[in-house]
């Protein structure tokens, strides 16, 4: 099989002009915190996703990065309609998901599928591969008539690089990477236009990671897919994404294309994240200036006032506590960045 070329800026640019498939505006997901011994009363909310907006175009890959607990996974479930948004708007190929009835949601959902992080937990151990990959057809019988299903499943297995003969095997007979391919085949079955990849490779060995990422890229071209690629591994995200959104405590703090985020980060949090990426050049190793964040991530139930990052920010000033910075382009930054003092800092190449 041919290895597709690495993503290039021009490819990202061209993808960016495609038709819009996902449009999220001010999406909010608050989980109530209840307390009480006899009667439960709501005493607060976990603000897992707190006003997120972005667009996704056809054929484009949007990477979403951030520390664990920043709301990435919740965001991906909200986009899929698996978790209803508390407010805001999630528009999927022209359909507004927020407020939609469960019955209608099910129909819409066939256009957006998900690939899970843990290939061991995401496949039903009591179903054969044929059953798992064929399940979408069983749920949507109009998509593939009964007689065709076996053939279609085998076709899908072939597409993801599995032996179609293994259709009657059970998940435990496969390795992790193979299982992830089964998951991908299942996600592809209904020919969705959007696939949410929720840390799809973080549970795999590094060598296998590359194979799966390459497979995802190949499939994107083949089926003209749009990806939302959630991960905490910056290098994987960079490898696959056209645009990248950086999340912190339920909000996007900076969003931009691959070069903008990696080469010209303007938000202190993005800079901090990037400075932690391992340095490939041994000569530079140990000489780079590392931005070490102090303190823990604040509780999403009680986020800091003003800028949420200020408690750990090396640039924080009084204004940060008073006024929440909007996610806009500023003087110091081409791409939208939610920092009053957004300024480019090349952390990757910076040395002491």
């Amino acid at each position: 099989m041919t290895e597709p070329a690495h993503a290039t800026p021009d490819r990202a640019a061209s993808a960016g002009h495609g038709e819009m498939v996902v449009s999220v505006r001010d999406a909010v997901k608050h989980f109530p915190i209840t307390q009480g011994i006899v009667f439960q009363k709501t005493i607060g909310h976990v603000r897992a996703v707190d006003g997120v907006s972005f667009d996704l175009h056809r054929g484009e890959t949007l990477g979403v990065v951030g520390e664990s607990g920043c709301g990435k996974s919740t965001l991906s479930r909200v986009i899929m309609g698996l978790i209803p948004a508390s407010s805001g708007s999630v528009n999927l190929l022209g359909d507004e998901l927020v407020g939609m009835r469960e019955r209608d949601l099910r129909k819409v959902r066939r256009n957006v599928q998900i690939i899970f992080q843990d290939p061991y937990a995401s496949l039903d151990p009591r179903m054969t591969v044929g059953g798992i990959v064929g399940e979408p057809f069983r749920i949507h019988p109009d998509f593939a008539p009964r007689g065709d299903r076996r053939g279609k499943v085998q076709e899908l297995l072939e597409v993801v690089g599995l032996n179609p003969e293994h259709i009657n095997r059970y998940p435990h007979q496969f390795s992790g990477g193979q299982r992830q391919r089964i998951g991908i085949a299942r996600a592809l079955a209904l020919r969705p236009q959007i696939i949410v990849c929720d840390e799809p490779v973080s549970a795999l060995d590094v060598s296998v990671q590359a194979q799966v990422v390459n497979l995802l890229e190949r499939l994107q071209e083949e089926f003209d897919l749009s990806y939302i690629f959630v991960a905490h591994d910056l290098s994987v995200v960079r490898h696959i994404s056209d645009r990248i959104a950086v999340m912190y405590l339920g909000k996007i703090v900076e969003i931009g294309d691959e070069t903008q985020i990696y080469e010209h980060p303007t938000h202190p949090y993005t800079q901090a994240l990037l400075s932690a990426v391992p340095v490939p050049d041994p000569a530079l190793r140990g000489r780079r200036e590392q931005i070490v964040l102090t303190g823990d991530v604040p509780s999403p139930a009680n986020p800091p006032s003003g800028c949420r990052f200020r408690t750990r920010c090396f640039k924080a000033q009084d204004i940060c506590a008073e006024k929440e910075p909007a996610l806009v382009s500023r003087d110091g930054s081409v791409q939208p960045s939610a920092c009053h003092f957004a300024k480019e800092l090349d952390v990757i190449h910076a040395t002491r």
Partner: protein
Amino acid sequence: MSELATAATAGHTERSGSLWADAWRELYRNPVFVVASVVVLIVMSWAVFPTLWTSTGTDGGTCELVDSRLGPSSEHIFGTTFQGCDMYSHVINGARPSIIIAVLVTLATTLIGVALGVIAGFYGGWLDTVLSRITDVFLGLPFLLGALVFLALLGEQNIWTVSAVLVVLSWPPITRIMRGSVIQVKALDYVEAARALGASNMSIIFRHILPNSIAPVIVLATLYLGGFVSAEATLTFLGVGLQIPEISWGITVAQGQDYAIAGYPHLLIFPCAALIITVLAFIVMGDAMRDALDPRGR
């Protein structure tokens, strides 16, 4: 694609696909299962067609009190009962109520227990709270004591009332275990994957939740099946089970056990052996079924 090569473990015969079909193939190749099911079939035929096995009729034939407690002989191969009836005929005819009660109660208990367990575990919320509290009320009633209270109230003790009372008292543990199991399975990614595919709740429950959460229930249910056969006997022993002139293993065992110890062992050995072998066969079948339904064990 290097992993493909390593994954294909050699020598695997390809199977036809469905879990149930695979399980079935697995089962009829298992000699233990075959023997157990033959035993169960034989006992079932005692229960359904007792006349195939004994010429004395379903009422146990004529009983001559002067023949009371005779040992095995050519005329009465298992000897005679306390009332002087043919023990062999009693063992054959006694299968019916015991089997009906055991099978009926196990089926009903499992159905109710699984259904309520799934509802409570899957839907959660207030439904779970209410169901769990009701389960607690019935779980708190000790089995035998509950049966005593209920049967004493009903006054009428026949196959149906005994079954009904056993069902009322034995669904809660199954519900409990099922609920716990469902909650565990519900949180797994493959359930979310199915939901992402647009599967309805019913479909998720039947395709994913049930097959993956029912294993402990199957083990419990087959043990229950055996337990109910002896529970029927124990209730009879306590005076609230089936009543003569009904013929059941429970009655025969309860009637015979005092005298068995006092020097007429055949009064206990034959009905008890029938009971034990049946229970054993059911449980072995259940074990084999559970194993067969788990593809990872193959």
